[in-house]
Structure formats: structure tokens, C-alpha cells
């Protein structure tokens, strides 16, 4: 039973990390209609910027907290610049061109990382006080996951929900997913709105990069490793649906952790089988709306 509980918690941990990345991807697609392949790159920049901050600027593990505040903002600024410099010009283009553009950005951003930070593996430590583990029902569990990862994931989840559903700006953003021209006709600066949404998506990616960095390695190539999983999550949950992203991430995390417990040889297989079934039975994703033509 306690094995079961620990694997359940592990699954939720995996879900939280991937949720932070996938939510930004889903948000940008939902509002801007662009499948942003470079979203993983923003996550990678979050990790590398945290590395620079902790290792070169402050030389101290407790500067993680500064990084948690500052780095996602820096990534959001980078996101805004990318939107104004590139993406803005392809909203009306064929989705294929959008994909080509964002893939081009992936390549450029990955080369820039190698130029600045080199291609070696890097690592940052956890903030002081979160190096060990806590016992939950007699089973050890990393305190970083319990006290930093889970709260950040849950706060982001609730924050996004409240922002999109309970604020005026959130309602405008949701309206923009329905009809861009109507929003413009009502006197709202759609260009600025789109830049803002893309920056918010980038902020989420950067936050994911910061949160994930102390748990693993930081390396060029982490962008592509994560973007594939993030795509799987949003495809299962439904592109553009934030509730779907939560559901997709939970399914992804739990399938992974219980897959390892029961059938370790095929731990990655289940998630792909599920994705295939979802694509056949419900192509718009579990909680996605029907794909409408002419976005």
C-alpha cells in the first residue's frame, strides 16, 4: 500500500514538472493558434539563466530564490521579443509555415546556448534546507518535490484558472480565442494582447526550467527532450484546453510511475498507446473542443 502511495506521489511530481511546460504551450496555441515548437527552448533558457545566476553571479545555493523570481521574467522578455520579431508575422500563414518558423527558432536558440554556455552538462544545487527528504507514511520523499515543486505547480494551476476566468483581462484573452477580429473591433489592442499572452507562455516555460533545474542536469538538448513529452500531454488533454493540460499531465505522470512499478520493460510504451487511442477516438483530446476551421 505504501509502495502504491509513493508511486502515486512520484506520478504527481512528474505531472507537475510537465504541467508547467505544457500549460504554456497549450495557452499559446489556444490564444494565438501557433504550435510553438520553441517552447522547450524557453524552458532550456530558464535552466541556463538560473545556472548563470547561481554559479557566476551570486555563487550561492540560496540565490535559487532570486532566480525563481527573476529568471521567468527574463524568459518572458525574451518571449516577447521573439513574438514581436518573428511570430507576429505568421499568424495568418499556413500552420506548416508556423511550425517551420518555430523549429528554426529551436535550432538558432540551441546554437546560441552552445555559444554562451558550451555543450557540457551543468548542474545547480537545491536551495539550502531542501536537500533531504521527509517521511510520509513511513516512506521517504524528496522535500524539494513536496515543498517547492508541488506548491509551485498548484499555485500556477490555480493562478492561471483565476486569471483566465475571473479577471477582465482573462476574459478578453478567452474571447480572443473565439474571434480575433471582433476583439479588435471592440477597440482592444490585439497585437499587444498577443505579445502579452506569448510572454506569459514564455514565463511559464522559464518557470518550468527554473523548477526543474535543481532536480536534473542542464544541457543543450534538454529543449527537445521536454517538448516531445509536453506535446504528448497537450495532445491527450486537448490542445488549447488548460483543464485538459492538467488532466493530460496527471495521466502522463501516473502512467509513467505505475508503468515502471508494474512493467518496467515497457515504461514508455503506455503513454504512446494512450496517445494513439486518443488521436483515433477523440482527435481533439480528452477535454479539447472540436477543431473549428478558420481560426
Amino acid at each position, binding site marked *: 500500500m505504501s509502495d502504491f502511495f*509513493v508511486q502515486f506521489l512520484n506520478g504527481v511530481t512528474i505531472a507537475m514538472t510537465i504541467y508547467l511546460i505544457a500549460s504554456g504551450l497549450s495557452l499559446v496555441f489556444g490564444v494565438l493558434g501557433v504550435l510553438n515548437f520553441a517552447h522547450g527552448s524557453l524552458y532550456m533558457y530558464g535552466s541556463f539563466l538560473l545556472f548563470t545566476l547561481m554559479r557566476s553571479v551570486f555563487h550561492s545555493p540560496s540565490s535559487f530564490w532570486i532566480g525563481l523570481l527573476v529568471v521567468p521574467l527574463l524568459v518572458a522578455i525574451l518571449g516577447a521579443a521573439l513574438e514581436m520579431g518573428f511570430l507576429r508575422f505568421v499568424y495568418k500563414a499556413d500552420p506548416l509555415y508556423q511550425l517551420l518558423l518555430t523549429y528554426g527558432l529551436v535550432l538558432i536558440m540551441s546554437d546560441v546556448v552552445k555559444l554562451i554556455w558550451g555543450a557540457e552538462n551543468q548542474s545547480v544545487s537545491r536551495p539550502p534546507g531542501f536537500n533531504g*527528504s521527509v517521511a510520509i507514511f513511513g516512506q521517504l520523499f524528496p522535500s524539494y518535490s513536496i515543498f517547492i515543486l508541488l506548491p509551485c505547480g498548484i499555485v500556477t494551476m490555480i493562478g492561471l484558472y483565476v486569471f483566465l476566468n475571473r479577471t477582465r483581462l482573462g476574459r478578453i484573452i478567452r474571447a480572443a480565442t473565439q474571434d480575433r477580429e471582433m476583439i479588435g473591433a471592440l477597440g482592444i489592442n490585439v497585437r499587444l494582447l498577443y505579445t502579452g499572452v506569448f510572454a506569459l507562455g514564455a514565463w511559464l516555460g522559464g518557470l518550468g526550467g527554473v523548477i526543474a533545474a535543481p*532536480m*536534473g542536469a542542464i544541457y543543450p538538448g534538454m529543449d527537445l527532450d521536454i517538448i516531445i513529452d509536453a506535446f504528448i500531454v497537450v495532445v491527450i488533454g486537448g490542445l488549447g484546453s488548460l483543464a485538459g493540460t492538467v488532466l493530460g499531465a496527471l495521466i502522463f505522470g501516473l502512467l509513467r510511475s505505475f508503468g*515502471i512499478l508494474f512493467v*518496467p520493460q515497457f515504461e*514508455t510504451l503506455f503513454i504512446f498507446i494512450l496517445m494513439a487511442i486518443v488521436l483515433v477516438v477523440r482527435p481533439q483530446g480528452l477535454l479539447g473542443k472540436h477543431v473549428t476551421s478558420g481560426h
Partner: protein
Amino acid sequence: MQGRLWRRLAVVAALVLCTTTTTGAADKPSIKIGLLYSLSGMAAVVTEGTVYAHEIAAEEINAKGGLLGGRKIEYVTRDDKLKPGEAVKEFRRMVTRDKVDFVMGVISSGVALAVSEVAKEMKVLFVDSIAQTAALTEEQGHPYVVRTNTNSTVIGRTAALAAAKGPWKTYYFIGPDYEWGHRVNADFWEFLQPKKQGAQKMGELWPKLGERDFSSHITTILNAKPEAVFSSLWGGDLIAFVKQASTYGFFDKVQFVSTGAGDLDILKPLGTEMPDGIMATFFYAFDLPVSGKEKDNEDFVTKFKQRAGYEPKSGDVIGYISTYMMAEAIERAGSTETEALVKALRGGKFQTLLGDVTIRDFDGQATFGYYTGFTFSNPNFPFKRLKNVIRAEGEEVLRTKDEIEKIRADYQKTKN
């Protein structure tokens, strides 16, 4: 007054001597060696140090007057872009246009196998320096390929040899889910069983390459309560695994036996986060010279650090050793002609920075030793170093002549 005159004369004489020796050397054609490495892309950072080490060796040799009575070493360095097709093209170009005497390189195993095929077809010598796939010298071996490095078979077997000396009997396995991981884990297990009575495999896990979250793997292993865990994880995966596992108290509960954890690309980024007491295999450690080579090693490490800005890793020292081994072979062959070189290399014994090495005549594989040690905190470095080191002799852990003949026969059968 007279003393001064003599001194002046001596200086003039020295100057004249210098100029005549340099012009003398310029008359003789240089020995052209092709270096084929990935100079752009992901692998560039790894091969950068190897090329530096090649250069240091050539400078030392040239400063002493070169080879074959005054011929200097000259490199022709090309980028294989980590792609077999590109590597093959560059190899042909180096041979036909640049007229290199032979080619040294490469980092990728896939590239090595492709280049080796062309070397066989063109009857040009290919000296594999970094890539470690055993297939190159085992089932796909031929007369025109030699390797001045250890190979992948040695890695799992060396770990097994050292692990068999410990008290652990129940093992859990974890490795990256692709050919290399499976092969190293199989080599370890095959070699451990006959050496350790009652050794038992409790289970195995195969996370995908680039896995981020190992929490489920870690708890699964801990719940099985093995005495030891063998791992062929490497690079970023290994770093992530170590960081996550230590929060579970993993390294206090099991003996971790790791094939990747002994080299600087893991120890440096992890710093103090690497636990003490991990059993780690490695090929070369800059601060653990072979006995009798302490001075040579110190010189090399100093020169290398000056040029590169960091301590030499296993993949770096290989460049230095490879150039020296080839220089020795050229002297013995008395020429740079392929057939004579092949003859001098195969079956030849070489004194290297890493001790005495033979290039075996039946497969062209060098018999470097391989090491296992335990991580510990050394106050002289901001990262962990290794102690209680056990050396496995190359011949002890390489496949034997009989084993290789069998593998080659099987390979021919499946090919036809």
C-alpha cells in the same frame, strides 16, 4: 675580455646551427596525419580537448627533431559533423587530395564503423581514438583498422571484476534503453556471475535516454532492497539520477556501481552533490598517474591546462597517447607506408603515458588497463576524486582471440 668573445662566438654558432637544422627539416617532406573529429555541433566540446592533446604531442615530437630523421608531423584537421556520410566524404578527400599518410579520429561509434569500411576498401590505415564500440575491432574488424583506446567490452567487465571483490550479492540494474546500455549491463552480468558465488539479479530498469525524473525508478529499486545497483547511465541522465537518488538516502542504503561516474564530465558539474563511496569506473584520472609516469603525466597535465583551461579528461589524454603511439610505429616501420605501418602496429608493444600497451595482432585493439575507484572528498579540488583504485589489465577484460573468432563467424553467418 676573451671569455666574452668566446661567449659571443658560441651564440653565433648556436644561431647558425639553429637555422641550418630548421632549413634542413624544411627540405624533408612532413608526415601528414589526418585528424577527423566533430568540430561543430554537440560533440565539439568533447573533441576540442582531444585535438589540443594531439597538438601538444606533435609539438613535443617536432621540437625534438621530428621522425624518420627530421620529418615533422603535420595535421590535416577536418570536421565530420558527427555524420557518417560526411565523415566518409572527408576521409576520402583527406586521402586523395591532402595526401595524408593515415587518419586518426573519431568520436561517434556510428561514424567509426562507417569510416572503417572505407578504410578497408581504400586500404588506408584508420586509427580509431575516441569511439569505443567493440564491434569496430571485434566482428567488423579488418587489417586497416586499429584502436588506440579501450573498448566498450572492457567497461562492464572491469566493473564486474571490482564488484566481485566486494561483499554484495543481490544486484539491481539500471541503464539507458538503447544498444550501448543493454550491452554494458550484459557484459557486467556475464562477467560477474562466474566470479561471485550466489550473485543474484533482482530486476532491471531501462529509462529512456534524456529521462528527467527518476523518482519512480529510485523507489522501485529501494523497495526491492538490493545490496548493490549497477548502472550504465551516463551524461545528463547520470547527473539527474545521482541528484534525485541522494535525496532518498539511496547511496546509504545500496552500493552504487557506476560506469560513467568516474570522469570529470560528471564529477565537475555535480561538485559536492556527488556522494562519497560510489564505485566508479574510469579510463584516466589526471591526478592518478601510472607508476613510473608521474613526471610525464604532470608535464602533460600542466601543458594541457595551459592550453585548454581545464584538466584533461579520458577523451583528451587519448589524443596525446595516440600521436605518440603512431610516432613510435612510424619509427619502427621506417616509413609511413600503410602496409609497413600496419605491420609495426599490430603485435607491437608501446610505452605510453598510461603504461605499457600492446596492440593485439588479431584485432588491432590496444590493451589499456581500466580502473575502478571510490569517490571521496579531496580538499584540493572542488569536486570529488577517486581512491582505493583497482586496475584491470586489458588482457584480463578484453574479449580473447577465441571469443573474437566466434563473434566474427557468427557475424558473417547473420550477414549472409
